[in-house]
Each structure stands twice: as structure tokens, then as C-alpha cells.
């Protein structure tokens, strides 16, 4: 799985990594139980601070996407908790995307088609 980092983006780096790992898990690029690189290795590879990667892993762990243990490092959870609801934060984000699409003249059907494609 390829992770793209933009140093000059408004989104913090730890969040960029988190978002892409979540997308990777969702798309199946990261399989359940798959080993993730160690904090140190990933930080070295990306050329970023280890604290940034550590923060990402902490967040992913809190959200229930990955689990960590001292022996095996970080792995994607075999079963991810399915709440069946969209979080308030994601609702707000979706609202923003829909608003921008409407203002740009994107038809509702096209937007639904896009959601179907990504889902």
C-alpha cells in the first residue's frame, strides 16, 4: 500500500497517514491481521519524526482499526467494530463535500454514483 504525504497540506501529517491507512483497510489493500511497519521504521522511511507515526498508531488503536503489542508491533484488527452509524465528524465532512459538489454543479446522481464506486 502506497502512502502519499504532503508536507504543505493543511491536514496534519499524522492525520494524512491515519486517513490513508483507514482507506487501505477499507479497500482491502491492508488485509485483516496484516503487520504494519514499526514506528521507527515507518518514521525513518517517511523522513518524519517518530512521534508523528506514534500519534497515528495511537489514534488508529483508539479508533479500533489496529492493535499493538510489545512482541508483534502493530497489526490490522481481524474484526473491526461495526457500529453501523456515521460519526458526527464524518457527517460534517460529508455535508461539506456535498455542499461543495452542489455549488460546483455536480448532479446528485453523479455524487451517488461516486459514493457507490468508493463504497
Amino acid at each position, binding site marked *: *500500500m*502506497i*502512502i*502519499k*504525504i*504532503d*508536507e*504543505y497540506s493543511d491536514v496534519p501529517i499524522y492525520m494524512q497517514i491515519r486517513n490513508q491507512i483507514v482507506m*487501505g483497510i477499507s479497500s482491502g489493500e*491492508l488485509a485483516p491481521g496484516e503487520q*504494519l*511497519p*514499526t514506528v521507527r*521504521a*515507518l*518514521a*525513518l*522511511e*517517511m*523522513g*518524519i*519524526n517518530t512521534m508523528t507515526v506514534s500519534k497515528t498508531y495511537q489514534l488508529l488503536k483508539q479508533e479500533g482499526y489496529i492493535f499493538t503489542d510489545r512482541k508483534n508491533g502493530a497489526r490490522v484488527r481481524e474484526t473491526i467494530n461495526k457500529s453501523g452509524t456515521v460519526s458526527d465528524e464524518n457527517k460534517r465532512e460529508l455535508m461539506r463535500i456535498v455542499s461543495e459538489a452542489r455549488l460546483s454543479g455536480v448532479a446528485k446522481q453523479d455524487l451517488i454514483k461516486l459514493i457507490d464506486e468508493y463504497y
Partner: protein
Amino acid sequence: MNRMLDIIMLIVLVPTVLIIFFLEYPANWKDRKFIFGVRNREEFKDAAAAERIGTITQKCRKHALIIMICCLAAAVLTMIIPDLVIRMSIWVVLTIAALVVMMVPLVIGNREMKSLKSELGIASQKGVTYTDLKGTGNVRVLKLNKVIIPNAVAAVFFIAALLNDLGIVKLHGLLNGQGTTAGLVTSGFAGAQLAVGLIMLPISVAMDRIRNEVISEDSDVNMNYNRARKKVWADTFVMFAWVNTAFIILSLILVFIFDSQIVFLAACGIYLLLIMAALMYMARRSIAVDRRYRQETSIDIDDDDNWILGSIYYNPDDKRLNVAKRIGFGGTVNAAHPVGKAVYVLTVLIFIGTFVMLGYILLLSRTPMTVRIADNSLICCQMTDDYEIPLGSIDNAELCTGSKDLNLRRDYGIDMDNLQKGKYMVNGESGCVVFLDLNADSYLVIHADGKTYYINCTDVQETAEIYEEINKR
């Protein structure tokens, strides 16, 4: 022996300029990953852009060829200079200058490529990096024992040389030699070579752990590509470690058994030739890897702005120290990293130090040697007072002629073409203090405080006057 040094310098200079020329100024730029330090992109395949790049590369290649021919002509002219010290100084300056001037067309090419990019409207993606999670921390090719074993073998031979120099075991001059010498000449040499091998150890590890490049959406392609290029580097380091060790063993055997400086210099020449040939081979392999994966490259990031003149990596946002080179073969350091800054400062200091040292050697070779009597002491002076012998301690003094017939063998000190200064073995007698200008025929042999001194002045008349003065007192 003088010509051997010329041959060694030629072995260094000629392959170096050839490697730079064929590696950095390719006749066909299309299958190269970088063109003068600028990433080769899809947009460059456009007919108009391709024609322009063709013109730039041809022009720079032509200039580089002219510079290369000039460097080689200068090398041939240098060999004509009779004075060894001046010749050696020019060789060193010429080698450094050749490295610098061969880069000039490349810098011009880099500038023109960057302006072409802005004309084509290719926006810089500064700050964008790609990382392949699958390859992170997994692509390791170097087997550490393969570089440790040759260095361990070299260390054994170094210890043997050290024991010999300390007089604990006798290895020196087994067949033809003149016996054990004082000082740490042999072990010093072996130690210096071993140090080079040991310095390469952490560098080889750093190169093996260098960041994996992402060239494709396919993780397998990325891993294979990174494995292939790291294999070239690992092979280079293993090869260097073994060649270095073989050279230490061979040179020690030559010194211990045959004791011939000519054979030793020939071994130095062969060593450098092997290193250069291997570097050429590895550089070709490196180009072949890039060429092989060129068709599979689907991710082209544009971080050219982080490369000053295409060769100095400066990226304050990147916390990594070492990165793969764009120009040349191997790795370089991030100049924005604190350690990278220190490396660059050290490099500049080494260059300055080399020129200061050359100036000092030239000055030393041109400064006449004088001996004077002052405050009841005999003072040998060249730039500074080198030796002071109290007149009262002199047991006897003898004026001799034929300084060039003396069989001199340096333990430590200065050994130039006609200037010998320091502790020497003279006609089989070790531990003698020598202060001789071999251009002057006459010299004094002085026995004082249980030591034997061989001294003279650049001016023959002065040597005779000093002898008379000693006898009077």
C-alpha cells in the same frame, strides 16, 4: 620509482574522468532516470521537449568531452615536469580540478533542464513523498558478515604488522629485506588501509537502510526495484572490503618478504586499477537497473527543487540523513540535516587542508637547509630549528663526500626527492638522525650522546665551515 607515482596518479585520474563522462553525459538520455539531476518525466517525451533536451544533452556532452581531453592532455604534460615534489603537487591539484570542471557542463545542463521544466509548466511537488508500507524496513540486501569477515582478516594482518614494528615478532625482511625498521611505518600503512575498510562498514549499513523509492502503485515492483539497486551497492561494498583486505595482505607480504618499494608501488597501482574497474562495472549495473525499471515507473514525483545543482540534496522537511545520489553512483547526505551540514563542513576543511599541506610541502622543498653554531650548540634549521646538538656532547665529527651514495631508509620523518629529515636507517645502522640535502655532496657524520647524526647544508661551503668550527671548539 618516480614514474610509478605518475602511473598511480594516471590510474586514479583517467578512470575517474571516464566514469564521470559516461555516467553523467549519456549519448541517449531517454532511458536514464535523471537528466543532469532532473527527473526524467513523461512530459519530456513530447517531440518539442525531446528535441530541446537532445540539444541540451548534446551540447553538455560535447563540452564535457573537450574538458575530459584537456584534463588528459594536462596529465600527460604533468608527467614531463622533472621535479618530483612539483609534479606530485600538480597531480593532486589536477585530479581535484578535473573532478570540479567535469561537473561544470552538468551544472549548466541542470539549470537549463529546470528552466525547460518551468517553460513546460511542470509545477514542483515540493514536500510530497510516497512510502510503500509493504517495503518499509523489509528491503535489506547486505549480509553484514560479508563485510565484517574481510575486515576481520585485515585486522589480523594489521596486528601482525604492529607486532613486527614494535619488535615483538620479526617478520620484516624475511628474504631480501634489510631487517627490522624502527617506527610504525608498516603497521601505520596497514592501519590506514584497515581504517578505510572500517569506515566503509557503517556507510554500507546506511546505504542498505536507505529509504526505499516508490516508482509504482504495485508494491512488488517497488520492492524488486529497491532490492536490485541495494544489491548493486551491497556488492560494491563487499567487493571493496575484499579488495582492500587483499591489498593489505599483499602489500605486507611484499614488505615483509621482498622489501621492494617498486613492487609495493606496483601493488598500489593494481589495487587502484581494480577499484576503478569495479566501480565502472557497478556504475554500469546501476544504470542497467534504472533502465530495466524505467518502463514500470508509474509514479513520478517532482522533488528536483530539493536538489541544488542536481547534486546537493537540501530538504529541511526531510529528517533523513542519507539519500540515494542523483548524479554519480551511491548515496549522499541531506545538507539540511545537522549531521549533513557537519559532513559538508568537514569535506570543505579536507579540501582546504589538502591545499595547505601541498603549499607546505612545496615551501619545504624550496627552503634551503642550514646548519649554524649558536649558544654552544649546533642547530639544524629548515623553516624551524629541527635539531639542536650541544657542542659539548659531540664525541667526534667527520666530513664526508658522496651523500647520494648513502643507503638511506626512513623510519619516520620527511623523505622527499633530495630532502631527507628524521630518523633513518643509514648504511644498515638504525636510529640515525638525518638532516640531509642530497643535492649537496658533502655531509657531516657526528656522534653525540650515543646517537649518530648525518647532517649537511644546502651550500657545500657552509658544511665545510661548520666542520672547521666544530673542530676548533
